[in-house]
């Protein structure tokens, strides 16, 4: 009898505890009503020294404590700068706490996907623009909050950017992200190596693929059967980079990766010729086995002198300055080689801030305001992170004029088409990467490798 009574008391105690927790949870949730129109706060003024919609202001910034989170991919100068921006924003708005998570890009892709799917994603996400089509398709993204941009119109935001840059984040007529970085991929040259083999960079810098083969062959150094330095090599540390390198070559041959109906063009002649060219250049100038590059340190082969010409973007500028030497003296950028230099075809990709739809309204508003704040000064992005924000008027700034080879990067962006953007981008990347590896590492003919890739990809794109 005593035993039964004590069990009963114990169970009643648990029941009371559970009820108390429910009441407490309800009280907390009740205090954070979403969409409350009665937020108390301070009317924000536009940022000083910033013109246009990115100056913001003209809305009531909430005064209660707000916590937002931001995740981004690791790259040392970029990480340092974003942390600095977060600190500045928190000083400006002491009631805001910004929780920051940094991960390698490969990890971030999966971490973000799982988090978004499970409802634990950040308020602000950083992602390659090629993912945005899939994220929009899955209903993850919040459209731009124009109120935090000083009540601007969509056209005002679009007018801030050069060319058709915002096409990559515009869906259904609305903008779902803002790029903080747009990159062409260009060639970076080791000028010390040029001098060493008696080449004059000013005259000998390769403009065509034939030039690259000729110059690359001279720059390549083999001693005792070992490659000591490659002349030029395509990237192999990441399949995403491989597609970035192959896509403009396909376009130089008059093709595209996907046709206008988003079907695979990999088995067509332009793609086959592009991969044949890749193989032929590699045979003369490269050695894919001789590489220590990884996705998180893609430029290491160039920096360590294992290759004289490499394939990278303007974001590498600070790293090159710190670890390799001086621009114009020790290294230089040129556009990628062309079949027809008079009609150049290059590729552009970009990283973009997006806002998570699955958050309380006030957090989304503050998140967009922080995005606005981060992007308000494109000149500073160049100085601190070597990132080129594709914004109008950038070339007139002092930082841009002093940025080594910015004219090369901006010219390449102007002649660029976007990196493949599709709900199935990751699968396209995987299949193209496999085809390239089959050709380079297994000696399979490009036609055969691309036929296999095309067959696999067609099933995926047809939804099978």
């Amino acid at each position, binding site marked *: *009898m005593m035993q039964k009574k004590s069990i009963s008391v114990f169970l009643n105690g648990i029941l009371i505890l559970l009820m108390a927790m429910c009441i407490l949870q309800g009280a907390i949730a009740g205090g954070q009503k979403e969409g409350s129109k009665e937020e108390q706060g301070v009317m924000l003024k536009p940022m000083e020294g910033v013109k246009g919609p990115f100056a913001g202001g003209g809305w009531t910034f909430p005064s209660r404590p707000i916590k937002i989170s931001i995740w981004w991919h690791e790259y040392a100068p970029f990480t340092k700068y974003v942390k600095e921006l977060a600190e500045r924003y928190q000083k400006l708005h002491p009631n805001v706490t910004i929780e920051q998570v940094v991960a390698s890009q490969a990890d971030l*892709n*999966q971490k973000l*996907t*799982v988090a*978004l*799917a499970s409802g634990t994603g950040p308020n602000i996400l950083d992602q390659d623009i090629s993912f945005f089509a*899939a994220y929009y398709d*899955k*209903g*993850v993204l919040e459209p731009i909050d124009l109120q935090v941009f000083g009540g601007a119109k969509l056209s005002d935001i679009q007018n801030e950017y050069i060319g058709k840059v915002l096409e990559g984040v515009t869906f259904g007529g609305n903008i779902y992200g803002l790029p903080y970085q747009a990159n062409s991929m260009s060639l970076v040259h080791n000028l010390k190596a040029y001098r060493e083999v008696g080449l004059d960079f000013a005259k000998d810098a390769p403009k065509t693929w034939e030039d690259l083969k000729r110059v690359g062959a001279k720059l390549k150094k083999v001693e005792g059967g*070992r*490659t000591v330095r490659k002349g030029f090599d395509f990237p192999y540390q990441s*399949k995403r980079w491989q597609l970035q390198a192959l896509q403009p070559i396909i376009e130089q041959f008059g093709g595209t990766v996907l046709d206008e109906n988003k079907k695979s063009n990999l088995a067509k002649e332009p793609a086959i010729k592009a991969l044949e060219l890749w193989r032929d250049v590699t045979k003369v100038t490269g*050695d*894919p*086995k*001789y590489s*220590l590059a990884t996705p998180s340190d893609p430029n290491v082969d160039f920096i360590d002198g294992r290759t004289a010409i490499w394939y990278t973007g303007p974001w590498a500028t600070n790293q090159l300055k710190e670890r390799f030497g001086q621009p114009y003296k020790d290294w230089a950028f040129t556009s990628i080689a062309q079949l027809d230099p008079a009609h150049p075809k290059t590729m552009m990709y970009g990283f973009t801030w997006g806002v998570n739809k699955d958050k309380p309204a006030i957090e989304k508003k503050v998140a967009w305001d922080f995005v606005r704040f981060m992007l308000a000064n494109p000149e500073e992005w160049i100085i601190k992170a070597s990132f080129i924000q594709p914004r109008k008027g950038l070339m007139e700034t002092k930082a841009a004029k002093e940025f080594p080879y910015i004219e090369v990067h901006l010219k390449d962006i102007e002649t660029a088409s976007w990196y493949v953007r599709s709900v*199935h981008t*990751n*699968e396209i990347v*995987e299949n193209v*990467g*496999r*085809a390239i*590896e*089959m050709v*380079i*590492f*297994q000696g399979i003919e490009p036609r055969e490798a691309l036929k*296999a890739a095309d067959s*696999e990809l067609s099933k995926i794109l047809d939804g*099978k």
Partner: protein
Amino acid sequence: MRKLHVSTRINRWAYLFVLPTVLILLVFRFIPMTAAGYLSLTNYDLFSRPKLIGIKNFIDLLHDASFLQAVRVSFTYVIGSVIPVWILSLLLALMTVKLRKGGGIFRTLIFIPVVLAPVVVAVLWRFLYFEYGLVNEILRFFGVSPVPWLTHPTAAILALIHIGIWRASPYFMVIFTAGLQAIPEEFYEAGRIDGTNAISEFFYITLPILKPIFLLVIVISVITALKVFEIPQLMTDGGPAGATEVIPLHIYKTGFVYFKMGRAAAMSILLFFIMMVFSWIQVKLFSENR
């Protein structure tokens, strides 16, 4: 009041003590497994609500060239790594048991690969297998042409198999050592009286007594090899050209990179059944041979 029987009171306490473990297994194993079973019958893409599509995922897998390649790669890895593991781990155990002095130190040093984190192992071996890394330098020293370990499809899977053997053998050595140390010395004494030598002792005394240990080692080593993931992902990411994309890595990419969680769940269920069938066959074989 009638007092409960002692055995009933003991049973109740026993259930109470195992309850936390059962709850943990339920929450972190059985419920997710059941959820995976359900998801395998849907077109779940991580973002939209799962929609039932019956066994379409399983049927599609039969024609999925990349999945079938992953199965081939996994089986190559399993067969290539587990048989040497069984032999090597038993040999190491026999050696350490025979060592009168330093056996403990020897076992500790050999066990190091087991305790190294997979990331450390991957980075370490990536450098060792580099074109001009230590492995190729040793080959060159002996007049052998260097091998493109991580860029040639056959060499890459061999490199992974080697790492698998290097990591697994010390672990199973410890299991065999425990088994060997449990064999009563009287059995060997009796054998010597009957005129056995070291070889016949091994085949007629040691091996038969170690049979249950063998069953454990075989089943666990095969399951572990089928589940290998970190080393292929970190060293080669399944390349070159899918030559090292084992089933778990393919499942991961299907679910988290291509957002096809339903299909990934179907692959997981298939992998689970392969392991169950294998384990059942082994248990049957070993119990029939008693």
